């Protein structure tokens, strides 16, 4: 796709050339895991003497909340970072750089896809830091049933797809948008419902049943559950494999649909 590489390099260059943006982006997931992950100590919710068993029952088999929630934090990090793909399109429009891209012989979709790919790179780097931090902190992430190459690939694929999904959704929203306030209004409106109507932070057994039923259709849940299954369970049973396959298939189908939507919308609709 013509224009993809120079625009992608521009995005990455702008990222590492802005030390505040770069380091704040790195710190954000650390706060997530260190503060939010430690805020909920589930051992305090179950009777003494059977705390490990009780906690693990509430947390889908995870020995502590950080091991449970890391999958959700990885997914919501993708959600928050994906937002920037959209806001960056509006910035480029407001600062005039979008005009330069539009008068150049590049594919319009390159402009949108470089924002999405740059978001994915940022999210993957954040994910590595996040997992490392979760492993280091006391009472942190525990791979009680091991963690192999297949598990790592599932984690990378889920993060990449959910990052793609959110980055492309926010890019689609921003394709004709000129005002930053408008996109932030939309972000504020849909962020929390997307996060809390999902299994990212809480298991289905902890939720009101109506919310739990809605959450199963939320792609945030699919990504969080796919990552959680390999982190908590290690080697999966055949039936667990089937469930994992369904989550990944759901994410993949959405990724394909959004890829097509982004190509069509950006080629036809993007304006200065």
């Amino acid at each position, binding site marked *: 796709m*013509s*224009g993809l*590489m*120079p*625009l992608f*390099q*521009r995005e990455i*260059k*702008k990222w590492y*050339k*802005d030390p505040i943006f770069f380091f704040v982006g790195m710190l954000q997931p650390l706060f997530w895991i260190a503060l939010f992950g430690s805020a909920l100590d589930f051992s305090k919710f179950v009777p003494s003497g059977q705390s490990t068993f009780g906690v693990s029952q509430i947390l889908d088999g995870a020995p502590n909340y950080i091991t449970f929630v890391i999958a959700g934090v990885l997914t919501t990090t993708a959600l928050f970072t994906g937002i920037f793909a959209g806001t960056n399109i509006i910035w480029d429009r407001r*600062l*005039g*750089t979008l*005009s*330069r*891209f*539009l*008068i*150049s*012989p*590049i594919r319009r979709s390159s402009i949108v896809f470089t924002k999405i790919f740059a978001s994915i790179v940022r999210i993957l780097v954040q994910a590595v830091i996040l997992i490392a931090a979760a492993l280091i902190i006391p009472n942190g992430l525990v791979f009680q049933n091991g963690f192999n190459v297949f598990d790592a690939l599932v984690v990378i694929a889920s993060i990449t797809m959910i990052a793609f999904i959110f980055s492309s959704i926010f890019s689609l929203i921003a394709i004709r948008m*000129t005002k930053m306030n408008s996109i932030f209004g939309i972000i504020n409106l849909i962020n929390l419902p997307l996060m809390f109507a999902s299994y990212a932070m809480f298991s289905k057994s902890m939720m009101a049943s109506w919310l739990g039923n809605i959450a199963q259709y939320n792609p945030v849940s699919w990504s969080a559950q796919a990552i959680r299954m390999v982190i908590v369970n290690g080697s999966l049973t055949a039936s667990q494999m089937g469930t994992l396959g369904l989550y990944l298939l759901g994410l993949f189908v959405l990724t394909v649909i959004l890829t097509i939507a982004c190509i069509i919308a950006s080629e036809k609709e993007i*304006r*200065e």
Partner: protein
Amino acid sequence: MEIIHTENLTKVYKGGLKAVDNLNLSIDEGQIFGLLGPNGAGKTTTIKMLTTQIKPTSGNATVAGINIITESLAVRKVIGVVPQDLTMDEDLRGIENLLMVARFYDIPRGESLRRAKELLDLVDLTEFANKNVGTYSGGMRKRLELVAGLINEPKVLFLDEPTIGLDVQTRTRMWEYIREVKKKLNITIILTSHYLEELDELADTISIMDYGKVKVTGTPESLKSALNGDIIILGINGNEEAEKIKKFPDAISVQLVDEKTVRVKVASVDSELPGFFEFLLANGVKPQTMSVERPSLDQVFMEYTGRRIRDSEGGEDVMKQRINMRRMRA
């Protein structure tokens, strides 16, 4: 040879505003072609259509023989554009911006580096090549924009209001750079402006646009001379002298502005002035002051549009129209 050809090119924005109305242009290769008109005349919309940024509502056009509607990507490869607004990324260095733009045209790295250095040198930005564009002054940024439009060695360079917002001194420097580009690269330049003196200085041919239509086309000299004559303004000592001046046989007209001022219109000051002096001496007219007013593009504009270009700038209707057009383009 014709490099740009438009046939009934029309753009109607949502809301019904006809920004460009059945435009028929034929622009020859190798010249600086100026589109003159007030804000809202349709100049930028014309440029945006020719550079494939927006699609015409009806009509068609070719640039360097390539159709702007069916082969927009191919058109973008052979043109250079310097838009009205700044487009360089201020977080990147000057040279990084140029190299990025070069890659949009698939120019090999070594070649793009050579061109970028050469172009930065052309506009005296070599020593600022490694500075972030955000640190550049307005004039420096405009110069960088100019060479960004040249990195692909275009056949046609579109300059949309290249000196808008610059102070007079910087504007004059910009004109020198544009002349230098024309001289060194010998390309066709399409220049829009609402500064009369800018097109008078730079353009080989001018089309005056108003309300989306071309009113007249010609060289600056031919447009001015078509107004038929120069004006000699004399400071005199009363009506008696005025009456004598009225008898000057080669005057096209003599207008008494007030008791002490007379405007004498002659075909050409260059050829008529000696005879006029002889006539004044022979008739004992001793003017206190004398000045010459040659026709200006402002007068040409007034002749064809019925108003002065400066007056049309601030008019409420035009301002509203301009704001509406910006909104509709968005």
